[in-house]
């Protein structure tokens, strides 16, 4: 009985203190602990994070009734979807003194005209990460999707490759490899992509959205389809653990998916004021630079560039040069009918 009362008391105390808590629903490893600690000290509040590793996962959980998040960090196509659903609160621009720090090309994105609902935070490219030494030894190319789709290459790395467990990303990679757009509407072309994937699937070790970071860093896996910032992390982890190899990552020459992730305010969030303070804090040059220096993400913030480490700013997979930008596409959500078709296609890919 006593214990029950104690638990209830704690819960109540917790509820009272919840007043000064910012609820953030974010990608794994997308805000460094140091940055968070600095914000918590500055605002004298707490930040509580929950994580997802895929936009679809986040949208599925929101669909299942997840509530109370002040901030989400969706990718462009997910932002569009959330706006259409009416799930977002518009950004109160006067509250964001540092909004002018954003690079001009990010201020009026196609998925959020006028930047009414979202504030870009980081960019990443979905590409191939690899064990440099191992691939050099095997004489395999590192700048093409063929590395994960062609049996003649896959034979030499069988069981040492993982791909993303994401419908749009994996199908998108196959589409680019075949020379089509990731926004293709012709079902026949999607069937081609499915065929390419099924042909390569027996050589892949697993579908993985996040375990590949550790697997690459340890050396269990030699090639991984994943996000540029995760590959950066794998590279840093391998270096820190003094592994006898280095991790490289390259944007494939056939083209790839570019993701722009930004902060949005969910309607069910209880502290929009804290949310705005957080966004403004992250728009400051020094704090914005953290996302590049500590996480290896691309940066839409002009004021951050002076603070970004030169070797990271020079990394083409993180800050793509103008030539690369032509080959990069952003994902857009499809209409329900095509979405259903793709979703069933994805199920087939999993089961065959």
């Amino acid at each position: 009985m006593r214990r029950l009362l104690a638990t209830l008391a704690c819960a109540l105390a917790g509820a009272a203190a919840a007043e000064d808590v910012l609820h953030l629903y974010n990608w794994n490893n997308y805000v460094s602990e140091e940055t968070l600690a600095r914000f918590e000290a500055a605002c004298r509040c707490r930040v509580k994070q929950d994580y997802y590793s895929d936009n679809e996962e986040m949208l599925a959980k929101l669909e299942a009734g997840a509530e109370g998040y002040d901030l989400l960090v969706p990718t462009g196509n997910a932002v569009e979807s959330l706006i259409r659903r009416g799930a977002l609160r518009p950004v109160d621009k006067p509250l964001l003194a540092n909004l002018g720090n954003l690079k001009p090309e990010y201020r009026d994105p196609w998925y959020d005209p006028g930047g009414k609902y979202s504030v870009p935070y980081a960019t990443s490219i979905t590409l191939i990460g690899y064990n440099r030494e191992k691939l050099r030894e095997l004489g395999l190319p590192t700048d093409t999707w063929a590395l994960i789709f062609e049996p003649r290459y896959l034979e030499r790395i069988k069981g040492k490759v993982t791909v993303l467990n994401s419908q749009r990303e994996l199908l998108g990679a196959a589409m680019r490899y075949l020379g089509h757009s990731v926004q293709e509407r012709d079902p026949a072309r999607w069937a081609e992509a499915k065929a390419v994937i099924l042909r390569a699937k027996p050589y892949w070790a697993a579908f993985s959205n996040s375990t590949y970071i550790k697997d690459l860093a340890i050396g269990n896996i030699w090639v991984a389809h994943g996000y540029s910032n995760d590959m950066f992390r794998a590279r840093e982890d391998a270096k820190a653990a003094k592994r006898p190899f280095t991790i490289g990552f390259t944007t494939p020459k056939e083209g790839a998916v570019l993701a722009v992730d930004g902060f949005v305010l969910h309607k069910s969030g209880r502290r929009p004021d804290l949310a705005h303070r957080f966004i403004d804090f992250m728009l400051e040059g020094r704090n914005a630079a953290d996302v590049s220096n500590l996480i290896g993400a691309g940066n839409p913030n002009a004021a951050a560039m002076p603070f970004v480490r030169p070797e990271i700013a020079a990394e083409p997979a993180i800050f793509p040069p103008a030539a690369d930008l032509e080959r990069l596409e952003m994902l857009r959500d499809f209409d329900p009918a095509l979405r259903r078709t793709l979703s069933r296609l994805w199920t087939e890919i999993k089961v065959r």
Partner: protein
Amino acid sequence: MDERREALEAGSRWKRWLVAGPPTAFLLAFFLVPAIIVVVASFREPGEFGGLVPLAAGAAAFSAEAYRFVLGDIVYAEIFAASFAVAAVTTVACVALAYPLAWLIARSPRRRRDLLVLLVILPFASNFLVRIYAWIMLLGPANLLYTPFAVIAGMVYVHLPFMVLPLYTNLEKHDPALLEAAQDLGAGAWTRFWRVTFPLSLPGIWSGSALVFIPVLGMFAVPELLGGTGDVLIGNLIKEQFLDNRDWPLGSALSIGLTLAVLALAGLAAALSRRGLKGTGAVS
């Protein structure tokens, strides 16, 4: 005397509802009604943003499309078959591994027996994810991660205690006089085991098998964490529909399929263990 019994009967009727009522109400609400919802959900279209078209849309939104999709392609039957195969292999492996343990426990003196049983249950006291993680740690360096072997090893590891306990409970009840009689009649050790002990232990094997086979059918965590691209089982498919793909009708249809499979198996297990008991009157 009759009046008294009548009074007791009348009294006991409302007493019956008083005692049986609350658990019944709770389970009707949180078990039966949800089960019916799954059936209803399987006959609907997915909603615009995933999930379902709202149930309130009524009969107008009826659609057997999910079933047409599942039944229209042999590959879903193949996944069910693969899940059955994995469950079968796991069960057989569990029987093989559990038998020596169960026999040892059954034949040990009373005090040691409790200790031995405890030693079997203790690993079960660890969280099941921890047990899977243990295998991730062991198989990674051995290059056996993301293989079918990893999936089977994980399944067996998680379910082994469920086979040991019913088996030892059964073996404990065997009359040693039977084996002595067999020995007197000239039967060798293997014959004694195969002709006497094993048939008598069948009810225990059936109980244990039910406790292993049915849960394994629905598992998704083991294939997801230990399995490779070809090791997708029905549990993974169902989980993906609900938590990744947001295609709830398809997930519900697959769940109904799994439920029917499980009910058929449970019925089979019950029939078999009843027959086993009838045929072996020697079990005390």
